[in-house]
């Protein structure tokens, strides 16, 4: 997206119904961010909607479409962290997110993915958000730092600690899954 483009922004400012285009363009990022963090569909939907309502109220403050995306990401991130702090929500997997068994070799193992998502959801709040932003949203370290409002070095530290925590679990899970696949 071009840094200076204001196509979406200008359209939404001129006509409220055009705000739907912004939602269509960015909902994958916002919803996936909230879902990746909570692993809960209803919470993710509510938080994503809150983020869009906040965007609608602050639309006139934004400068470009790129700014809009960054602002939205930052808002969604903060809303997720705030919600966790407010509700002391323990992350859990709901029924619809438990993967079904697949037959045959596939690149993305749903069992491994589900187990790993559960392990990620057990990480502390900021560490979890860093992992989601880095590996799900594929953001650079500077972008993560910008979204979370923390220094890049802190992001690096959080990421390193998260990987150290996840390493034995991942090794264990990959061994288990490989064994299960070879046994089939």
């Amino acid at each position: 997206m071009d840094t200076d483009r204001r196509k979406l922004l200008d359209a939404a400012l001129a006509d409220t119904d055009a705000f739907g285009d912004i939602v269509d363009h960015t909902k994958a990022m916002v919803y996936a961010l909230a879902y990746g963090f909570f692993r809960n569909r209803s919470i993710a939907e509510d938080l994503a909607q809150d983020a869009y309502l906040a965007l609608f109220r602050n639309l006139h403050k934004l400068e470009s479409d790129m700014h809009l995306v960054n602002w939205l990401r930052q808002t969604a991130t903060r809303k997720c962290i705030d919600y966790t702090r407010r509700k002391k929500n323990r992350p859990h997997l709901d029924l619809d997110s438990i993967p079904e068994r697949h037959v045959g070799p596939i690149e993305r193992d749903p069992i491994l993915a589900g187990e790993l998502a559960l392990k990620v959801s057990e990480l502390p709040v900021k560490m979890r958000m860093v992992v989601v932003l880095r590996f799900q949203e594929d953001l650079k370290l500077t972008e993560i730092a910008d979204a979370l409002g923390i220094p890049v070095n802190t992001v690096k530290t959080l990421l390193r600690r998260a990987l150290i925590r996840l390493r034995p679990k991942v090794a264990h899970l990959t061994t288990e899954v490989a064994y299960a696949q070879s046994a089939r």
Partner: protein
Amino acid sequence: MRSQQDSSLVESVLRRSLVRRPAPVGFTDRVMAAIREERRPRPLKRNLAWFFPKISFRMGFALTGCVCAAMVLFTLGLPTGREDRNAEQAALHGAERELAEVLQLAGNKWNQAQEAAFSPRMDNNK
């Protein structure tokens, strides 16, 4: 070296496992409905609207300010009233005391006058 390999393995597994989940169908409509709901002007709740006249926000604010100011002035004015009453009572007591003194003096004078009036007669009678 081993640690780096482990980290890259973990990273690649994480990248493969943590994938974006698409937003549910109708999510945009839900958001737009929420925005329309927020934009919709809500009527003010007036339970006793039939009783109270319709006043503007500024007018209501001004009235509230006046009532508050009156209450503050009344509260501040109370000690002054009490002081006035105390001063009045003190003046009353003073006046009573003066009257008593005057009456006493008058009484003394009366007695002296009586004594003066009657004593020569008594002498004359003698």
